[in-house]
């Protein structure tokens, strides 16, 4: 963003000698420049001026998105050691690895707003920041891995594709990368369910049961109805958000119904039917009391997910301390914090898209 108004505001600030009295004038000039940039669909970048509330909304949203990737590893990792074929096991491991990578991109995006990963993880661990309610549901059978891919990743993509055009540049760019991998995961989940649906009667029943359990929680992923959504109006005005919760939810239902038909599975909603007049599927009421309970911490797995995350962090403390101590001894002044900056970097440096393993199963 570099509009004329913005440059003018900067120049005037540089010229000031007495400061204070014109602060309000400057702030409003910045604000005008910011509003103009947003209106013109320009990207806001880390060094640009932005309203405090815009910054804090983004920190909250990006952090919670990052936390969801990290907590979201748990329900799927629950099946890595039990995957029923080596091919499926490789796909699942690659997917969980991708999720850790998405968490890393997103924490980096949040850090451009002046926070740190440590601070954000601390907020997650102390319950001051949330993660997506969907990950408080348990994965009870292998078919849940497919249902998560198809429905949960499907809902995430419906939510996230518009974020690729989000007004904040670093977030928008992270979403472009993430959405590519997510749609790959979603296709894999669909294909897993299709295999089960066309398999033995027991496999088919397993797939149907998983879809029955994951359908409504997936619809809740779009958040409360528009008339109860706290942050929506402001986020839409700032072009952080591009569509309302209910719009996105409807779009998701419209996509899923024909997909369920071709999977040979039913969706657990007796009121689901095509509405010729609206050109959309009508669907039954969502149990918002369940949603609220899960958000309050009373879902089936809230306690388990949080305690496992805290335990991993606490049990890893001595490793991070060791890496920091080693860095102090060997890199002198370059030392920063924790293991995140030393061996972890060496290790992870080769991963992601740069890593083209020769014999392993690779993702797209």
């Amino acid at each position, binding site marked *: 963003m570099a509009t004329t108004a913005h440059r003018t505001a900067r120049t005037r600030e540089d010229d000031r000698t007495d400061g204070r009295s014109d602060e309000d004038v400057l702030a409003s000039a910045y604000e005008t420049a910011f509003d103009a940039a947003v209106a013109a669909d320009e990207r806001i970048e880390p060094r640009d001026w932005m309203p405090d509330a815009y910054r804090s909304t983004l920190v909250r949203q990006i952090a919670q998105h990052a936390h969801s990737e990290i907590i979201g590893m748990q329900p799927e990792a629950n099946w*890595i050691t039990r995957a029923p074929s080596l091919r499926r096991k490789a796909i699942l491991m690659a997917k969980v690895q991708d999720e850790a990578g998405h968490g890393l991109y997103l924490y980096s995006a949040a850090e451009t707003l002046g926070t740190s990963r440590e601070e954000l993880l601390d907020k997650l661990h102390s319950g001051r920041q949330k993660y997506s309610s969907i990950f408080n549901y348990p994965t009870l059978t292998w078919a849940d891995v497919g249902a998560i891919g198809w429905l949960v990743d499907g809902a995430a993509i419906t939510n996230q594709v518009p974020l690729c055009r989000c007004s904040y540049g670093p977030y928008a760019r992270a979403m472009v990368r993430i959405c590519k991998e997510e749609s790959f995961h979603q296709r894999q989940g669909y294909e897993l369910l299709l295999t089960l649906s066309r398999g033995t009667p027991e496999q088919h029943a397993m797939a149907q049961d998983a879809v029955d359990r994951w359908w409504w929680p997936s619809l809740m992923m779009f958040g409360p109805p528009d008339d109860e959504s706290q942050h929506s109006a402001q986020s839409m005005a700032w072009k952080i958000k591009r569509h309302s919760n209910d719009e996105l939810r409807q779009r998701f239902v419209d996509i899923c119904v024909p997909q369920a038909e071709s999977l040979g599975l039913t969706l657990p909603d007796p009121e689901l039917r095509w509405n010729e007049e609206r050109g959309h599927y009508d669907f039954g009421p969502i149990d918002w009391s369940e949603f609220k309970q899960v958000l309050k911490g009373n879902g089936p797995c809230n306690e388990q997910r949080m305690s496992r995350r805290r335990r*991993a962090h606490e049990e890893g403390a001595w*490793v*991070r301390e060791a890496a*920091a101590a080693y860095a102090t001894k060997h890199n002198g002044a370059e030392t920063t914090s924790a293991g995140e900056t030393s061996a972890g970097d060496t290790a992870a440096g080769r991963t992601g898209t740069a890593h083209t393993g020769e*014999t392993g*199963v690779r993702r797209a």
Partner: protein
Amino acid sequence: MTATTAPLAALALGDDALVLSHRLGEWAGHAPVLEEEVALANIALDLLGQARVLLSMAGDEDELAYLREERAFRNLQLVEQPNGDFAHTIARQLYFSTYQRLLYGQLAAGKTRFAGLAAKAVKEVAYHQDHAEQWTLRLGDGTDESHQRMDRACAALWRFTGEMFQPVDGLDGVDREELRTAWEESVGQVLGRATLTVPEGPRTGAWTAGAGRQGVHTEPFGRMLAEMQHLHRSHPGASW
């Protein structure tokens, strides 16, 4: 190399990769830093990829992975050892990746049916070894606590390392003496740089060295297989 011995070597190498990959997969969601979630999963995926190629040389990969019982697995006892703390996981990886890199280096230069796979895999394994070395240095030469933990881990796993230098049917072209010398030199050098001492004591467990290759395993392995095979075995004949 005869046709009858070839599958045995493929099983031995394939089982090593399969079992260690499984153990590393158990770390998902538990790693000390996010970068390690990525790195450990990456190593697990590389090993699983190798396992699939190797097991396919010996038969059907899923039948071999999911329908053999404990006594039919030919992996080293080292790779089946539980993850323990991060130091145990790193010590196990250091010992194994150093061995695998040297072995694959020899196989890549040789004329056995493993030359092609080894030439590709050795690049991955070089990364695994580097990763284990980097962490061995940090844990060994980090804090007092990490030094002690790493020291304990290296000592605890030492007795499983002798098995790596026992003969394997079908890997006749491998110079085992050279493998052993190079391994000792490489591991000794890393431990020295990490301010750790090379463990003393025999490099064999309660069983004679080479037991894992003969299908004699340690107790935790059966439980690992029970978890790994349970779903597959519950649906005989199903496709996934």
